[in-house]
């Protein structure tokens, strides 16, 4: 149960990092990655995964 980022589509805007309630998203070597150990798919925090809600590029934050 975790989300992932499709790196090839990511614009590096950083909005998902900002919204993630679990600080699961970080910039590593100039790409944003989701740590599956920290990602809860936003359970207990929000109805919908925040990264997918804010991401400007369709189908870029998706279930892993």
């Amino acid at each position, binding site marked *: 149960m975790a989300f992932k980022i499709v790196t090839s589509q990511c*614009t*590096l*805007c*950083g*909005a998902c990092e*900002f*919204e993630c309630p679990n600080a699961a998203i970080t910039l590593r070597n100039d790409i944003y990655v989701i740590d599956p150990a920290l990602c809860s798919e936003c359970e207990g925090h*929000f*109805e*919908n995964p*925040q990264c997918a*809600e*804010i991401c*400007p*590029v369709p189908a870029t934050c998706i279930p892993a």
Partner: protein
Amino acid sequence: MSAPLVPLSGLKIATRKEMKKEGGCAASSCGSKAGPADMDPATWAKVKDHPCYSEEAHHYFARMHVAVAPACNIQCNYCNRKYDCANESRPGVVSERLTPEQAARKVLAVAAEVPQLSVLGIAGPGDAAYDWRRTRATFDLVAARLPDIRLCMSSNGLALPDHIDEIVAMNIDHVTITINAIDPEIGEKIYPWIFFGGKRRTGIEAATILRDRQLQSLEMLHQKGVLVKVNSVLIPGINDEHLIEVNKAVKERGAFLHNIMPLISDPAHGTHFGLTGQRGPTAAELKKVQDACAGGANLMRHCRQCRADAVGLLGEDRGQEFTLDKLPEVIEDAPEAREAYRAWVAEERRDRAAAAAEAVLPAAEKPTLFAVCTRGSGRINLHFGYATEFQIYEADADGIRFVGHRRADNYCLGGHGDSERMDEILRVLADVPYVLCAKIGEGPRNRLAAAGIEAIDSLGQDYIEAAIAAVLSTRSARKGGGAARRA
């Protein structure tokens, strides 16, 4: 494309008196709008050095934008995040992304080199209020080193109400909010979604929340004495007629300026509007909406949609000279140069105001447009061949007014040939009978003449208003059968 900024040596330019020009009569009907005469002192103090807010200041001062806040909380149909945001930036050109520390270094380097610098702005790509941590960090770093530089930011307004107190505490005295619609049914056609309260929202709900937050921001900022400019993107067929309502609404709530700018749309930018064939307005359509809004909130006509990482006087762009890899290791600030420059500008402004007051028009002129080639200081001081854009002035019995810019640098067409450039100039100046420039070659002069446009280069270095008055009085003297007073 980048004429140099006025170098410090240029400060020795002759005053009008030294140039021994004969001005004409003496009445005060002419004068550029939004000068000190028709503004209350507190507002004038805030805007006088701000090129984006004062039509008059944009002749003298430079602003720079840094792109530090790439995250955004809404989607606009004229924006493709792979490129820059069309709000305050030109599409198709990707900005250098900077951390707050890198941005602050860049500002220091520019301040040391460019004494005209008076304003630092944070605008797109992204939203400065949504990506607030980075915006605040950048402003804090710069304010600590350069207390004389003014700070401004722009935002879509959605996140602004959460940061009003900090904006006031940090002395950010100018905020720009982009408001394209106040009717949610129109807003819905411009904004496919917003992210608010942990949820992506669409349709009327999204447009309503956005509208309410935008107007709330405007009211709150106005109440706290922060100057607010409203930007609206003119989208033909969607909000062109509606912008008059927007103008009224923002004026009522205290907007200091309303800047109506054209949609720039091209399928190559990959925006929704670009891909669906939504076109941008023509220069005439833009002027029509701007004219219809005159009398509401003060309209701003000198905006040229500078890019988010632009450096320079409005319209010039020296951003490429200050990319990160070109910054010196150790940066020494030069506050004295900025002070000296500002003192010179104060002098020059008095001089120009006096010249404008002297310039008087023959009675009963019907409106005539003039295209002016200038690189600042309110003078005709640019060779026609170097002009990539023209300042358009309108003169009639009520006086001489700056009414906007027309670009002719083939920016969107990608053409570079001289003949293509000339075609573009003839196209954008189709309704303008006079071009005023410092110098012009015979070839271009003849091509302009063939299109019914008279090029005048005998008034080079003169102030714009004075030169226009001189042209008109020469013309009316000719018409009246008398001899022309000046060549």
